[in-house]
């Protein structure tokens, strides 16, 4: 038993922190909120040079062959730096399903391009029903050999505005069916949504959109389980990094801000909030890594499922408590656009909602406990 990082993971973490402090400063985060594409192509290319898009991809397909827990170490740093852009959608929504269920041809075709930063992927899973379960997939899929045609509406699709391909979940007469759909076709119509985090999410209308069948027709939901697990824990890692930074900024502010002739951090009302913040951040970190560990080491399906649900249930609520305290500690300055703390507050909500909030996952925990 050991809850520390390995030497390699420490290197990954420190390297990423240094890199992102230089390459992803606050100004870039702000610029991307108002940017049409929502990401910096030069940062994207530099990240590919670091090997990050390909971190999980096996070496034979041009990646680094790291495990999922390693990726979470990186994603924690992404949350800390609020890295904007299609990294999680490409890696967790694209590379992961390809690695898990792609044919050898599909892996050979797409994985090296993901690793090199040449293509952007996303996962088109949710629909106007905004459900995360199998019933939520109602978009029509019709399969003809290795081709699949989709008709329907996907909603809250991350980074669809810049994605080259999307992995679409549809439903044929045999059940949930997945396909790899190129976005540069007439049958794909993307409309960007203005969101709380000013990230890029979209409505995607599929009108006879053509794609390659991914996996087996009708078995798409089962195939998505490892993808949803990883994406969900990835969101937790992002929230942990985000909350850690929000907490650090707030503690620093409490040391500097003087009222009644003394730093507000000397008041117990503020101190106790800070103590609760670090408890929540640390609690989130370990429950997230436990889920990442269960996935990486191939623990039983039951244990993995439970640990993923526990992680998202806990991190969703705990990190919200952290960013709410962060705002309160900052007082008036905190709710101005110019000050940075609100950047974390708004992004926490996006991640909290992604793949189900605390109540959704708590319900799944309760079901697994049999109650």
């Amino acid at each position, binding site marked *: 038993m*050991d809850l520390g990082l390995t030497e390699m993971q420490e290197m990954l973490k420190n390297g990423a922190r240094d890199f992102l402090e230089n390459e992803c400063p606050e100004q870039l985060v702000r610029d991307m909120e108002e940017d049409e594409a929502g990401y910096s192509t030069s940062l994207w290319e530099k990240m590919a040079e670091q090997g990050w898009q390909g971190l999980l991809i096996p070496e034979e397909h041009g990646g680094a062959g790291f495990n999922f827990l390693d990726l979470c170490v990186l994603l924690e740093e992404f949350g800390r730096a609020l890295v904007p852009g299609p990294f999680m959608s490409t890696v967790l929504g694209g590379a992961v399903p390809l690695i898990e269920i792609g044919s050898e041809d599909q892996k050979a075709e797409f994985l090296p391009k993901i690793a090199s930063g040449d293509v952007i992927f996303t996962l088109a899973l949710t629909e106007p029903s905004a459900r995360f379960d199998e019933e939520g997939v109602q978009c029509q899929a019709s399969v003809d050999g290795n081709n699949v045609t989709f008709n329907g509406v996907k909603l809250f699709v991350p980074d669809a505005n810049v994605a080259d391909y999307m992995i679409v979940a549809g439903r044929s007469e045999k059940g949930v069916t997945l396909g790899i759909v190129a976005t540069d076709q007439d049958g794909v119509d993307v409309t960007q949504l203005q969101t709380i985090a000013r990230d890029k999410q979209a409505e995607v209308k599929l009108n006879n959109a053509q794609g390659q069948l991914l996996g087996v027709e009708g078995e798409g939901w089962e195939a998505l389980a490892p993808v949803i697990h990883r994406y969900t824990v990835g969101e937790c890692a992002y929230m942990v990094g985000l909350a850690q930074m929000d907490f650090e900024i707030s503690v620093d502010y409490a040391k500097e801000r003087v009222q009644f002739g003394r730093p507000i951090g000397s008041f117990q009302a503020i101190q106790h909030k*800070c103590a609760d913040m*670090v408890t929540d951040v640390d609690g989130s970190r370990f429950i997230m890594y436990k889920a990442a560990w269960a996935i990486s080491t191939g623990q039983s399906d039951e244990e993995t499922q439970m640990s993923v649900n526990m992680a998202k*249930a806990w991190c969703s609520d705990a990190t919200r408590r952290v960013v709410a305290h962060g705002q309160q500690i900052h007082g008036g300055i905190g709710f101005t656009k110019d000050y940075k703390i609100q950047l974390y507050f708004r992004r926490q909500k996006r991640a909290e909602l992604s793949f189900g909030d605390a109540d959704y996952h708590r*319900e799944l925990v309760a079901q697994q406990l049999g*109650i």
Partner: protein
Amino acid sequence: MDWQDSPEQAQFRTEVADFIQARLPERYRSGDENSDETQTTGWQADRKSNDPSAKESAINWADALAEKGWIAPHWPKEYGGAGLSVMEQFIYNQEMAKADAPPVGGMGVSLLGPTMIVHGSEEQKAEHLPKILSGEVAWAQGYSEPSSGSDLASLQTRAIRDGDDFVINGQKIWTSGAQYADWLFALVRTDPEAPKHRGISFLVMDITTPGLTVRPIIDMGWQEPFNETFFEDVRVSTSNVIGEENRGWYVGMTLLDFERSGISGAIEYERTIKELIEYVNSEPENDIKTRDDFESVRHQIADRYLEVNVLFNFAFRIVSMQNSGMVPNYEASVNKMFGSETHQRLARTGTKVFGLYSNLWSEENEYAPMRSLFTRDYVRSVPHTIFSGSSEIQRNVIATRGLGLPRG
């Protein structure tokens, strides 16, 4: 990161579990036939019990542990401890807690011994340590006073030098288990002129010394875990000072800095929440699941389950840090605060589940669900956020010592 034992750790775990399975006296084995009272008052009370079978159980269990050198697993070997590594101690504590086996030696093993090993003279060590290890002498701690709780350093019990003795007058309170103890270690004021942290000495004394009176305090759960201890011209030799005179505050803080992971709490709450879940799922007579508020109840149960998992991770973190040579800072305060607050939430959820039945106090009542465990825990978890540094003090410590916020 790894949440599993290494092969060596797994082997040691099996050794401990097998030992407990083979040697734990029947009286201490979990089960409905054993009363909750036995589980809470434990070994220290049993060894002074009028019930011969209780006394025999306490002696047998101490003997069994002593054979393995496991009464003081964390003490160095040269002082008769087992010299276990940090990780082995953790596994030992885990398995003891899983079996609900009572630790032997109480405060002598956990607090006084380790402090004496650091600060005591060779004579003091030779006199006291073997008697702790043999189970011959049990210790109680005299720190708090009626007017010195969270602000412990303001303590006023006076020890005035008279030749080779100190003469002590004053009062201690919350002296846990003093009614079953043989010796007392106490913080007393030996220099009232000095700044408050610098006029305190750490004294040990026989609890039967004339002038020393122990009076149990009946708590809100009708139990007597704590006492008041009164000093009226109690004469104690100056050779009973541990460490330097007037440096007792720092000697005492060695004890408090002796970080504990809190794993036994996590294991107890896990056992409790699992039993609650099993009850809700299997009780054929109950209609809990048909109640209108069951959705809220089941989410509360799930939350408690989550919190216990978070608490486990906090405990694992402490031992991971120690195992890699780091010294925990605010982390131990997080464990105490979060663990005690989880305990109270768990009791609240349990009483919520059973509704009106949570009125029932007696574990023997035929109507009592789960032996009325939650009702009694609801009352008995109240002190948990107060003793050993209240939740507020823990948050102060986290904020100032851990996060570097300025003291108020």
